[in-house]
């Protein structure tokens, strides 16, 4: 199966130090991958470099055969992105917002696809609501609808269910599973909810201090660290990171 995302040797250094240190990350077509790691591990920087928003100091990124940064615009037609922390622009109704993004993705029928997406995630009644009238959970759902209405080959979600109650989170997982099943969409997701990751992802990539420290199916990765589940692996890596920061004098 071919890769929809192929990143090789990604490097990024900010003033405070190296954020990403030689990360290789591939996602095959239709594959569901979780990018995990404690705070400051380099997850978001890696995602933003893969999306062409942040320029890497070194390494290459290719999406659906388009090399970044030159092929960014063409590549983004195959990608959807949503993040729990991104608001909906004010002064737009949900339908207007989705229509706008549908047109940005080159859709000839954005209204139809917006309705299809809203129905998939059970929020069709929100089409006329103003962005400011929505709860944070509804905003997240609309963000996910926006990022899936063009049937992307790769869907990138940064903390998609961070602000959702369990019921809505399940609706998101079900909707995403249906999308991946029906359309063969690949998923690259970051989350701090390890139970959720075990449900969604068939492969996990653990980052720590900007490096890939584990890559494989969730249970295999847990076993490799001698732990029972991903939650324990996460806690182990977070405590390791904290200990190394103490040693380096980065924390009091």
């Amino acid at each position, binding site marked *: 199966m071919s890769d929809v995302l192929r990143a090789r040797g990604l490097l990024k250094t900010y003033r405070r130090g190296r954020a990403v240190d030689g990360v290789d990350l591939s996602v095959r077509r239709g594959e569901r991958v979780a990018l995990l790691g404690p705070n400051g591990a380099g997850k978001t920087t890696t995602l933003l470099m893969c999306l062409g928003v942040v320029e890497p100091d070194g390494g290459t990124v290719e999406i659906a055969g388009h090399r970044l940064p030159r092929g960014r615009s063409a590549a983004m037609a195959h*990608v959807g992105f949503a993040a729990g922390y991104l608001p909906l*622009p004010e002064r737009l109704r949900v339908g207007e917002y989705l229509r706008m993004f549908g047109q*940005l993705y080159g*859709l000839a029928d954005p209204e*139809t696809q917006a309705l299809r997406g809203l129905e998939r995630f059970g929020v069709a009644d929100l089409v006329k609501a103003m962005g400011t009238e929505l709860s944070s959970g509804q905003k997240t759902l609309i963000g996910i609808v926006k990022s899936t209405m063009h049937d992307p080959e790769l869907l990138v979600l940064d903390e998609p269910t961070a602000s959702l109650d369990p019921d809505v989170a399940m609706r998101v997982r079900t909707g995403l599973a249906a999308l991946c099943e029906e359309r063969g969409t690949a998923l690259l997701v970051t989350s701090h909810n390890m139970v959720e990751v075990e449900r969604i992802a068939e492969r996990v990539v653990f980052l720590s201090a900007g490096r890939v420290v584990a890559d494989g199916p969730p249970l295999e990765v847990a076993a490799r660290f001698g732990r029972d589940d991903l939650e324990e692996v996460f806690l182990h890596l977070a405590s390791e990171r904290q200990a190394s920061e103490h040693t380096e004098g980065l924390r009091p």
Partner: protein
Amino acid sequence: MTAQGFESAAARGPVRVSRELAPWLRILAVARRHAYVLYRSPHRLFDVTVWPIVDTVLFGSLGVYFVSQGGPGSPAQAGVAYLLSGIVLWHVVYQAQIAVSTGFMEETWSRNLLSLMVTPLRELELVAGIALFGLAKLVMGVGVVALAAFGLYAFDVTNLGLALLPVIAILLLNGWAIALFVVGLILRFGNGAEAFAWGIMFVIMPLGGVFYPVEALPAIVRPISALLPTTHAFAAGRDLIDGGPVPWGELALAAIGTVAVIAAALAFVAWMLRLFRRRGYVTRYS
């Protein structure tokens, strides 16, 4: 669409426009988004209604007062027309600049920049979409000044004839070029640089020859004024007021300067955009 039609369209999956049409669709999408912003924020009409009238009354009355101080043969007689044509033409630069600058800032205020950057939208398409809607605001703003000048002071700017069109085109391009500088500063310094959007116009206004020729300025700033393309465009406007022939010399100087200013603005914004991506400044807006 019927329920059956919707279901079959949904099952088919999305239909995409051709590759040639896609950039135009994206530009229109951005323009429409900004039309909604104005429609739902009527206070933003202040820039294109109240402000132009205030300017017209201020400069028109100033001109009328000075005319009343001089005799019938006084050179001050032309002053009111210079001031009113100056303010009408100034609003071309002002509205073009402020529409693009605030349009871009709207994307930062609403933290929409990251969402836009992960779509196929190109940077120039974003600016083009904002500028396209900005043209509508410009027509409103300049129209209000022109109507106020006609209604309140019987000054008809259309009497200057078709020769006014190249002057307007040059001023429009200069407004967009200044906006690109402002966008570059916001990319580099964040929303703290917003003050430039309004402040820069108060620097350009006295130096840009809006109401008077270069010779009226203190000697020390005359070279700067002479370098600005707006100075020559406004000078061309005054030549037309005086009833002279089309001032090709001034227009040529203004056009050459405009090409240079636009090239510099594009280079500057491209440089700032590279820094923006390299330093990950997008996280300021997400």
